[in-house]
């Protein structure tokens, strides 16, 4: 977990009006401290290994299968790091693969000669509460807001609030989902570069924290720590909106070669 999350816990603690909420936020800070001290995971769900690769177009990768190398890294990391193995090989037969592979890998080709790898382990509890909807263009910004707020409301206590809300608007069905996931990689609370979208983020943040869900859903004002929205061009007929919820265990780390 990054310092950004820890800082936001402290801010939330000050702002929280519910005593239970405060108590829970305090426990989350303590939990992070213990995890850090003992070098153990802050949450037992050490997630699906979601990997974002930005491959410079001048880079040449030699000596084997790149994706296999990433999976080998996941295998080693999850085994040697005493992380939980949470992946089943077949979604219906459901037999654990025993080493948390395969990873979900997203690759982007970018200019330059470096290789950037971001690992963002994603917990199942918050992932399960995520949703996507193909709105009509006529539904507009109100439709988008309603869908996001509705998704958070329905999720209630399940995704371990306080949560980070990632929203993708535009593109196609799968593009919207990917945008939502990518928005979770931002530093907590970093605003969209588009002023109208930054305003939407603010409005959503305010509305969500009025829902009363609070830390762990036991009531309070800290339901979301941040709302991040990413957008992309859309088809004349469509307004896709995806909401990817992330719990307070908002983890990501990157390496650049």
């Amino acid at each position, binding site marked *: 977990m990054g310092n950004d999350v820890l800082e936001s816990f402290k801010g939330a603690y000050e702002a929280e*009006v*519910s*005593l*239970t909420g405060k*108590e*829970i936020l305090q*426990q*989350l800070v*303590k*939990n*992070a401290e*213990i*995890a850090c001290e*003992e*070098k*153990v*995971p*802050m*949450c*037992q*769900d*050490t997630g699906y290994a979601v990997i974002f690769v930005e491959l410079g177009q001048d880079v040449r990768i030699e000596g084997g299968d790149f994706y296999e190398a990433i999976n080998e890294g996941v295998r080693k990391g999850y085994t040697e790091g*005493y*992380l*939980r*193995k*949470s992946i089943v090989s077949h979604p219906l037969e*459901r037999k*654990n693969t*025993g080493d948390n592979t395969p990873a979900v890998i997203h690759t982007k080709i970018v200019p330059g000669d470096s290789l950037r790898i971001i690992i963002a382990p994603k917990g*199942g*509890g918050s992932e*399960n509460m995520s949703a996507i909807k193909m709105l009509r263009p006529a539904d507009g910004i109100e439709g988008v807001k309603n869908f996001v707020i509705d998704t958070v409301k329905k999720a*209630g*206590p*399940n*995704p*371990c609030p306080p949560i980070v809300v990632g929203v993708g608007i535009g593109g196609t069905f799968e593009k919207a989902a990917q945008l939502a996931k990518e928005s979770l990689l931002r530093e907590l609370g970093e605003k969209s570069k588009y002023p109208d979208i930054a305003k939407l983020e603010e409005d959503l943040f305010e509305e969500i924290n*009025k*829902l*009363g*869900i*609070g830390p*762990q*859903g*036991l*009531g*309070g*004002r800290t339901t979301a720590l941040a709302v991040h929205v990413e957008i992309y061009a859309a088809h004349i007929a469509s307004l896709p909106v995806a909401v990817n919820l992330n*719990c*307070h*265990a908002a983890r990501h780390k990157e390496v650049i070669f």
Partner: protein
Amino acid sequence: MTQIKLTTPLSDDVVEKLRIGQRVSISGTIYTGRDAAHKRLVELIEQGKELPFDPKGQIIYYVGPTPAKPGKVIGSAGPTTSYRMDPYAPKLYEVGLKATIGKGRRSSEVINTMKEYKGVYLTAVGGAAALIARSIKEAKVIAYPDLGPEAVHELVVEDFPVIVVNDTLGGDLYDEGIKIYAAK
């Protein structure tokens, strides 16, 4: 806030006195189980067979811990989302289970079963897995080791902290929280 101390196994008497919002600290033996283990447990009940542990008066903690580091009893061990066990939970309360520990809402079917069979639903703080692990003093796998993190563990806990979410009267702390804190 005052804490109620409970030791397992739990009697109907003790469970019936619990009310939503109360802080409870649990000591004694509890059992773990998640999706895959529940599927097997309920199959056993349906076939009239014995379970790997006697559920009477017991507590099931919905958790799949991380592996223990050398010298440790258990890894991180916070609650998982309970609604996934809703299809199975009534059967377990019916055979004498007194409480479950998890996070998130239960279905009305589970809430009604708890009313009928005198059971409660408790929550531990989701994501506070390293903190929670400190109250787990012993852990061993007693069934389904093939399920990896989903195996059934027998845990010995000391002052394991939980909050009552659903009591035997059908109360729901999540609903109450929103009623108080939603902006009017």
